[in-house]
């Protein structure tokens, strides 16, 4: 048993540490998607954005030696993909869900194509802050090695919550999402608002991808993301388009995703793959519980195609 002196306590501790580590990509993608969906459009392509972000962050970090430039590059790649999504969706009679599926395929394909030479080299990774210095137990210290991006994400959730409520931009995004006619009547371009909202959403999702390749798991390979992007999109739905609920849901998801590796570390290896599917099963279960065929979801932007 690898747990050593603290025995089975390793499992909850690893789940706790995992909740912090694994949740970061979920958090960024879901906050980004939250902005996009509040403006009345759904971008299912964030899975592709996440992988592209991971690849470009790793590449730029390797080439420049600065992981933070990598994070920035991932954000801009994501914003570009967001602009592509919004641009195509601005054309008449184009279905945003289908465009998302296309960008999911295109994003992962491009990332694998461009990232082929990056599988071998090692890029500088993001530093972590050691919050576990007070403890002698190695597992506690490992669980409390926290990345700055996680803290940024945690801070971003209340900021977005506040921005949606009180700022001019928040109001504009919500107006575009609730009634495009109202936004148009006020003299604003709905397509323009959605373009910006999708680009910001892509930017955040790209940063979520950079966390995957530059911190945890911390390398670039083709199996890096397996559905985190799409899970995060689903997460926004049952978080009721509320950034704070996105934060709590992301943490729960991180914990669920850390369950498989945590059990493996104490020697429970049978059913490893099934435990790895825990976030997807959890997503599906929560969607089944929270959705209803009778009414539209409370808090759903009225212009959103999946709720109409």
């Amino acid at each position, binding site marked *: 048993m690898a747990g050593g002196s603290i025995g089975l306590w390793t499992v909850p501790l690893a789940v706790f540490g995992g909740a912090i580590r694994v949740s970061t990509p979920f958090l960024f993608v879901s906050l980004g998607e939250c902005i996009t969906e509040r403006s009345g459009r759904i971008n*299912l392509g964030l899975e592709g954005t996440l992988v592209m972000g991971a690849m470009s962050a790793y590449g730029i970090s390797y080439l420049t030696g600065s992981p933070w430039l990598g994070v920035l590059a991932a954000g801009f790649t994501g914003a570009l993909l967001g602009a*592509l999504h919004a641009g195509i969706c601005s054309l008449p009679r184009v279905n945003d869900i289908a465009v998302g599926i296309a960008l999911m395929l295109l994003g992962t394909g491009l990332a694998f194509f461009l990232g082929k030479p990056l599988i071998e080299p090692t890029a500088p990774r993001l530093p972590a802050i050691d919050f576990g210095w007070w403890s002698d137990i190695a597992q506690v210290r490992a669980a409390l090695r926290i990345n700055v991006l996680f803290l940024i994400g945690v801070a971003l959730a209340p900021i977005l919550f506040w921005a949606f409520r009180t700022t001019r931009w928040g109001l504009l995004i919500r107006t575009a999402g609730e009634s495009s006619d109202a936004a148009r009547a006020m003299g604003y371009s709905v397509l323009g608002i959605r373009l910006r909202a999708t680009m910001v959403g892509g930017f955040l999702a790209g940063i979520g991808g950079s966390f995957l390749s530059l911190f945890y798991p911390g390398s670039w390979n083709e199996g890096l993301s397996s559905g985190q992007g799409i899970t995060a999109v689903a997460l926004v739905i049952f978080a009721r388009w509320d950034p704070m609920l996105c934060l709590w849901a992301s943490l729960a998801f991180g914990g669920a995703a850390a369950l498989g590796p945590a059990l493996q570390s104490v020697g429970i290896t049978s059913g490893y793959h099934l435990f790895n599917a825990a976030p997807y099963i959890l997503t599906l279960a929560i969607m089944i519980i929270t959705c209803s*065929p009778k009414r539209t979801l409370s808090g759903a932007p009225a212009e959103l195609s999946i709720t109409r």
Partner: protein
Amino acid sequence: MTSEAAETVDAVAISPAADGGFLQRYGASIEYILIPGAALIAALAVFGLFVFLFGKNPLNLYYYMYQGAFGTWFSWQNSLTRAAPLILTALCTALPAQLGMVIIGGEGALLIGALAATGAALALPSAPPLVVQLAMAGAGMLGGGLWIMLSGGLRQYRGVNETISSLLLVYIALAILNHLVEGPMRDPASLNKPSTPEIGAANMIGAIPGTEVHWGLVFGVIAAVASYILIYRTTFGFAARVAGGNIRAARIVGLNVGRLVMTICFLAGAAAGLAGMVEVAAVEGRANANLAAGYGFTGILVAFLARQNPLAIIPVAILLGGISASGGLLQRRLGLPDASVQVLQGIIFVFVLASDALYGRIGFLKGKS
């Protein structure tokens, strides 16, 4: 997709059959070939530009793509072999699309179908091959059908978005596959690549005589034609298209929408499950991680490029089977990464969707009205 079905009906109903010129009568049909064709060519041009940026000659690219896809009898057979599962997984998206549903979980149904088919074969060790093959096909279709029916049921009775649920089910299916082939169903002799035991050479479905293309292609063509007849020539299909066009109208005229959704989703999943059975019984001979080769995802593209028309799926699947067949040659001759095919598919998908904006806007096809 919902409105497309309705538009087609309108065009047929409204356009005067007797007077009116050729363009006026067939303008809409020509559009359905011309616009996706133009999107395809534009996508190939952009892909050529893309590889040009990596220092490759686009003309070489097109030449090797043609050679690898349809240049020789050998590559034709390769393309057709790959087209077989694509036809079946494309039906998994195209059939629910008639109801206005976007199902993208064909890959999951394929994996579950493959597992069920393998399980059926392993459970019947001494039965005659024909019995085993029928049991495999039945189990594969049942497994895949129930898998997609789950998405349909969740949408119909719980209001869960079917696009997201079907995609989540892909990852769950993949986990189940990995769990079973590395655990309960593992052949202890498979060391490097965990796999189930082989289903036995006698139980494999062979090739169409005179070719190396397996019978799966015939299954696919039959399934596509049957789907076409079901959708466009039966009352059931008509009801499905009515519900896809206007669900409220469908309820008012007393259609049982729930039953339509469940039946269509079952058939859709059964098609993808049959693709899984074919991959086991004609290609792999056992279940392992090779089955998750992405046929389910390419099938989505096939369905969209064919504009969800089951008959159009056949040529489009052969075309995309050809593109993926040419991947190997592009890797060997041009040194392009194996993901090139995926990039091209993504570009095609984007152009095909963007071209949706062009329908009904091409001047000379409108005729005079």
